[in-house]
């Protein structure tokens, strides 16, 4: 239980601190914005400094592709076009139950606009059970699919379904495939999972489906993007730190390692988020300059799908749109992606309609979860299979004094 009396007092302190921080933040933001206007040699230098500092800077940098103050209005949308999107949710393995299974529910949506409007909204639940389906295995190495790994498997499944929908699109008509969240599979970048898991999910999964969509996009006007609402990323702000850094290469631990955080020269920009940076610069509908993600996993694993991104100004917020390299380098596809994402947000009251409908199809409510567990228990009981559960699980379900 939560004692709100104690929490309220702590909240008061928090609000006081935020008030003080707000004044400093305004000045830091002003400083950051003043750095966006660079002349050509300065811009070239910045690009080089980013490239040189990738392995020595602890900050995750954005690689500038276009001048930083770039702002591009959306082109007119085509008369006839389709949007496809997927989202997913899951019922994780219940480790208090003796039966090992999980469920992935994929919501998939296709919306056709123009002369012939049509909508296809589907929910596709898939139950995984048994020794083979609930693990990722390579030789004698085995990793159980549950928790964070199940999240990743679900993302790969979302991409697979998106690819399958893309193959069914009419070939001559512009279309945009939208993924919820980031194109970067951050969770695979650390040491959390063994290499064979990364290979299975990324190389034989996510990348394979991106390859197939790229192949399709070479034959038809298909675009692909992922959408992040209210991003908290600071990659561009980090790149601006390099403009303040007095050294040729940002070798932070060597030059500033002895200085506490807050005392380094570039800390005059600390706390500035990319979305705050672009909120004033862009007018509604405009996109920012293009940047490349310099995440290690992207540089090492994404090859031709290297993640690029831009920020998009909506009525009340800035969104981050990520695209693979083959979209970023094709002006027509880039412009189409920008225009269609903005159009989707306008139709969806600030959030892409196709994504929000895919979410509605995918979502598994608390009562759905209960029904799932009950149905499972009934099936097991009917077949006289033991469905023993732990004492801890029973204790949580039964309240007693």
């Amino acid at each position: 239980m939560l004692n709100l009396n104690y929490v309220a007092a702590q909240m008061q302190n928090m609000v006081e601190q935020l008030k003080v921080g707000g004044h400093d933040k305004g000045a830091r933001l002003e400083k950051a914005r003043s750095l966006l206007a660079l002349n050509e040699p300065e811009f070239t230098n910045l690009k080089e400094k980013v490239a040189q500092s990738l392995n020595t800077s602890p900050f995750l940098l954005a690689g500038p592709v276009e001048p930083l103050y770039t702002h591009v209005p959306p082109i007119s949308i085509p008369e006839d076009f389709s949007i496809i999107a997927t989202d997913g949710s899951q019922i994780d393995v219940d480790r208090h139950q003796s039966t090992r299974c999980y469920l992935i529910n994929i919501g998939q949506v296709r919306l056709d606009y123009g002369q012939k409007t049509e909508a296809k909204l589907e929910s596709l639940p898939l139950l995984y059970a048994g020794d083979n389906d609930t693990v990722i295995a390579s030789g004698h190495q085995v990793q159980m699919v549950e928790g964070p790994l199940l999240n990743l498997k679900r993302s790969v499944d979302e991409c697979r379904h998106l690819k399958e929908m893309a193959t069914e699109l009419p070939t001559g008509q512009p279309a945009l495939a939208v993924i919820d969240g980031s194109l970067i599979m951050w969770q695979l970048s650390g040491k959390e999972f063994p290499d064979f898991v990364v290979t299975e999910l990324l190389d034989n999964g996510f990348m394979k489906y991106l390859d197939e969509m790229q192949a399709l996009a070479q034959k038809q006007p298909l675009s692909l993007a992922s959408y992040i609402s209210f991003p908290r990323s600071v990659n561009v702000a980090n790149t601006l730190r390099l403009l303040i850094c007095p050294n040729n290469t940002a070798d932070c631990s060597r030059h500033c390692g002895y200085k506490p955080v807050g005392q380094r020269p570039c800390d005059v920009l600390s706390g500035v988020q990319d979305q705050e940076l672009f909120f004033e610069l862009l007018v509604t509908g405009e996109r920012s300059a293009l940047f490349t993600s310099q995440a290690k996993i992207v540089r090492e694993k994404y090859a031709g799908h290297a993640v690029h991104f831009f920020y998009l100004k909506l009525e009340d917020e800035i969104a981050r749109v990520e695209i693979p390299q083959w979209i970023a380098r094709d002006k027509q596809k880039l412009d189409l992606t920008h225009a269609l994402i903005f159009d989707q947000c306008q139709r969806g009251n600030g959030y892409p309609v196709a994504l929000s409908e895919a979410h509605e199809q995918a979502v598994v409510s608390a009562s759905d979860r209960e029904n799932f567990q009950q149905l499972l228990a009934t099936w097991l009981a009917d077949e006289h299979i033991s469905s023993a559960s732990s004492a801890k699980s029973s204790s949580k379900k039964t309240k007693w004094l």
Partner: protein
Amino acid sequence: MQELSQTRLGEVIQASSTTFCAQCYELYSLPPLGTLVKTNEGDNELYAVVYQAFTEGIEPGRKPIARGKDEPSEEAVFKANPQLVKLLRSEFAALVVGHKRDGRVNQYLPPRPARLHGFVYECSSEEIAGFSRCYTFLTLLVNAKAETPSDELIAAVLRLMSASQEDPRAFLVNAGKELAALLGQDYARLKAILERIKP
């Protein structure tokens, strides 16, 4: 097996001994108030009259919002938001007024309610004429406790049924006499219905 030529209106999604509710296959393809419809329950063919219809969002938690401020027409709202057709549904509720068993029409409640997912058809003119040879069903309608005012419902049923009769005027006059016998004690109500079915 139903004949293919019959108009299938929808499918039963809720049923009790006295009423059933059906979902239309197409948005807004609702039968008019008072339409005589039928559905099968085993060997019984159930007859019912439409007393209520509504269109709402499929999910209880999602409330429709106004979308047409900048659109030139209502059609344009649906063109700009193609998903709406899939997220809204039209339903109608029907009051059971009789059933057919072994070829014989009985104007009293059937032994069992309609089955869920049973198809609901609009009755043909011949079926309407066959069903309305007698007026016993009016007793069920007069005593019905539906949300729709029963006077309005009775009048709507009789107006629609009269169109399938050889002599619509005579049908309505006879129905009026039947109602007079049923509602002898309630002149105001009788008058209200008669005014609504005046030939």
